[in-house]
């Protein structure tokens, strides 16, 4: 188990990749019972992390405003129609 990155700091992709490994190992069934319980708990955390990232689906569109020299000054709502 890679405990290097805490699950809460993982990107969706990292969490997804590890979840896939956890599921594969549990399904192979060649780990000791104690370890499989730890694996299951980690898998549950990874799944929660994935769901959290998926639920952060928020649409927010802004247009960058520029000054006369073309330097960004801030954002404004975009009316793309």
């Amino acid at each position: 188990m890679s405990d290097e990155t805490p699950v809460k700091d993982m990107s969706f992709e990292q969490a997804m990749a590890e979840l896939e490994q956890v599921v594969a190992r549990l399904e192979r069934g060649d780990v000791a019972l104690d370890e499989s319980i730890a694996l299951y708990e980690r898998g549950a955390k990874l799944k929660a992390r994935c769901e959290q990232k998926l639920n952060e689906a928020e649409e927010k569109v802004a247009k960058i405003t520029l000054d006369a020299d073309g330097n960004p000054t801030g954002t404004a709502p975009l009316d793309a129609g």
Partner: protein
Amino acid sequence: MDLLDDDAAPGNTPEYTVSELSGAVKRTIEGEFGFVRVRGEVGRVSRPRSGHIYLDLKDDNAVISGVIWKGVSQRLQSQPEEGMEVIATGKLTTFPGQSKYQIVIDDIRPAGMGALMAMLEKRKAQLQAEGLFDPARKKPLPFLPEIIGVVTSPSGAVIRDILHRLRDRFPRKVLVWPVAVQGQACAPEVARAIEGFNSMTPGGALPRPDLIIVARGGGSVEDLWGFNEEIVARAAAASAIPLISAVGHETDTTLIDFVSDYRAPTPTGAAERAVPVRLDLLSWVAQQGSRMTNAMGQRLQTRGQRLRDLSRALPRPDSLLDGPRQRLDVLGDRLPGALTRLVDRQRLCLAKQAGSLRPATLARALTHERTRLDDRAARLAPALERLLQTRREALARRGDRLTPRPILREIRAGTDRLATLSRRLDEAQRARLDALSKRLDSLDRLRETLGYRETLRRGYAVVRGDGQVVTTRAAAEAASGLEIEFADGTLKLGGTAPKRSEKPKPPEQGSLF
């Protein structure tokens, strides 16, 4: 009028000054060629700091100098490059100070599509040679970007298509950097936007995107030309943020497509590549979750079953004790009978022994022993008397043979021997002392002969200065005083000899012993 003048004048041809002639030429040329279009190949191009561009236009046989003033050069759609086939529009003018003429160019553009494409090919070859198209340079796109920067026109179908497709797949934060997507402003603005996104800091007031999409809808080759410009290609290549290019339709390829990390066929395609489909991922996650639960459940069930099987095979604790308990019962039953039998047997044995034990037997044994005792006591006194008599006689015999004479003889012999030995000891001691004394004398004589004083007697002398033996003239001169030792005494010469802390040692006097 001068005679010489008359000689030189060929009739009535009017006479100009140089300035007048130059001015006339200038008027003629500017009047005749006030607006011309000329087609030719761009020769040497120079761009001094003033911002003007000086170049040559040439064909196989002729060259015309040209200039593009700074104001004009800034709004050119495409910059002239050496070797480019161009059509230049402008007017001719002369430069009277140097007897030269040139064309002042108002507009210059590649001569037709072929020239444009040839220029593009050249540029492409150069960037390729620099390695900017190298697949190894291409950065992987993030799987799920948090913020997407879009460089495009803020109005129009392109941004709408992108936002629409993003919303369908996975709504994200989008920052739009508005740019002109055609015309001369296009290339510098797009390049500026790519650099601008890269210079933002993550989590700043303007959050830095994880992914950039540079997009434009379809159009003519000229419309898309800005995306063929070198500054755009270089900005895209230098971007640290992964970049998707989506310019024109699928069939249009612009220079930025070669350097971008991913080339999308259309802006919609760019949005599809940018984010995964959220619902797919949600169901994937749910599926992983249920697979995990199933695997775990199945595992627990298998283990549980196995545990039950094993526990069934395990015997009951009671049954383990049944055998021993039965043995105990049997043995317990047999115990009283066995005890009774043992007591009976021992009693029988005792009765047998007791039967042979009677007082008469004991009395008979006592009488027998007493008789033997009386017999022995009667023989004891006469035996003792006999023994004493024998010993007394032996003692008397030995006493008669005892006299002191042999002892006195032995004492006399001993006294004589002692006197002899004492005399011999004295003689031996005296002889040894004489021998040692003689040897000492002879050694002393030998010492005298070998010592330096014996040499002094033969006429030599020892010179000392300041307590040291002087053996050279130089040392003698250096000494504050000299002392000469003869056989019969010492003579002092010169100053007071320093006090010696110790007696001078005679030279080379080794110990003989």
